[in-house]
C-alpha cells in the first residue's frame, strides 16, 4: 500500500480552478466537479505525468515546500493518493 504507484489523470482531462481556499476541479471524462483543499492540488501538480509512489511525491513536495520530514509525510500521502484514486483523479500505475 505504502509503495503503491499512481499516475495523475492526464492534464488535458482536468480543469483546475483555484477559488480562494478551495480548488474546484472539473473532470472532463466523468463530467464531475471535485472540490478539494491543499495539499491535493499540490500533489497533482507534483506528480506531473509520472508514475509516483508516496515516497516520490513526498520527495517532490519536499523540494517545493518546507516540510519537516518527507518520511513522516509518506503514510499521509499514501492515504491522500488512495482517496484521489477513489475520486478518479489519479489511477494506479
Amino acid at each position, binding site marked *: 500500500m505504502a509503495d503503491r504507484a499512481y499516475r495523475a489523470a492526464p492534464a488535458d482531462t482536468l*480543469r483546475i*480552478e483555484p*477559488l*480562494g*481556499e*478551495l*480548488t*474546484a476541479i*472539473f473532470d*472532463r471524462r466523468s*463530467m464531475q*466537479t471535485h*472540490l478539494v483543499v491543499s495539499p491535493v492540488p499540490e500533489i497533482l501538480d507534483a506528480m506531473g505525468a509520472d508514475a509516483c509512489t508516496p515516497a516520490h511525491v513526498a520527495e517532490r513536495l519536499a523540494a517545493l515546500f518546507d516540510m519537516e520530514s518527507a518520511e513522516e509525510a509518506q503514510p499521509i500521502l499514501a492515504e491522500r493518493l488512495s482517496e484521489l484514486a477513489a475520486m478518479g483523479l489519479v489511477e494506479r500505475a
Partner: protein
Amino acid sequence: MRHSARIAVGPVQFRIGSDWAGPVAALERLYAAYPQDDMRPADATVRLFAARPWRRWLRPSVHIGGDFIVPGALPLPLSMGLLAAEMGMNLQVALGWRRHLLLHASAVARDGRALIMSGESGSGKSTLAALLGEDDWRLMGDEFTLIDPAGGDAFAFPRAVSLKNEAIAEVAARVDPARLGPLLAGTPKGDIRHLIPRADAVAAMHAPARPALLLFPRFGGAAGIEPMGEGEAFVRLTEASTNYVALGEAGFAALTRMVRETPAFGITYPDSAAGIALVEELWAEAAR
C-alpha cells in the same frame, strides 16, 4: 387540450394546455402585458390535466404534466389551478432549460448590473426582489436567474412574482391592486398571491445585466453582513443551480468566473427595511 395559452417569460416561450378554462384565464390576466409572439416555437410545454375524464367535473383535481414530470407529485384542487400552472412552468424550466446556467435565485438590476440573491425558500430573496423592484431597480426575477455560459451575463426570467404569506400584505400596501392576482389561500406553500412585475421590467426582460453583487440572504436575527469566499459561493451556487450538472464544463466555467468576478456576502436581517438597507449599503460598494 381544451384551453391553451402562449406566454413568453424572458427567453422561454411556454405553451400551456389545460383541461379547465380557469387556470388559463388567470394566467392570461397575469401575463396580459407580456410580449406575444405566437409564431415562435414553444421551448416548454405545461399540461394541466384531470386524472380521469370525469374528474374534470367531480371533485376536480389538477395534475401537472409537460415535457418533464415529477412522478408521484400530488394533484392540486382546481381552486389552486393557477399555482399548478406556475409550478408546471417552473418545473419545465428547472428540468429542461439548457441554453443558460439556471440559478434558483432572484435578481434585480440597476444601470445594467445585476444583484443576484440566492437562498432557500423562506430566505426572503423573493420578497426583497419584489420590494426592490418597486424602488428604482429593475426586477429580473423572483425565482430563477439565467446566466449566459459564454459571456457570463445574467438574463431575466420575470415571471409573475409569487408572494407568500406575510409578504403579501407588505407588497400589497405599495402597489396598484390591479397588479395583484387572486389570493390563493391555504396552498401547500401557505397563502400565495401573484404580483405582476412593473411594465418597465417586462419591457426590458431581454436586456442582459452584468453580475455585480451576489447575496445569500437569511431572514431572521440581527442585521449582519458576512463576506463569503469564492469557494463557498461556488459550492452554494452549484447547489442553487438546477442544471449545473447537465451543462458540464460550460456550467463549471460560468460559475468559476462568476464567483471570481462578483463579490459575495451572506446577510441576515430582521425585516425587509433592514434587508433593503443592507442591500443598498453593499451595492454602493460593489457598484463603485
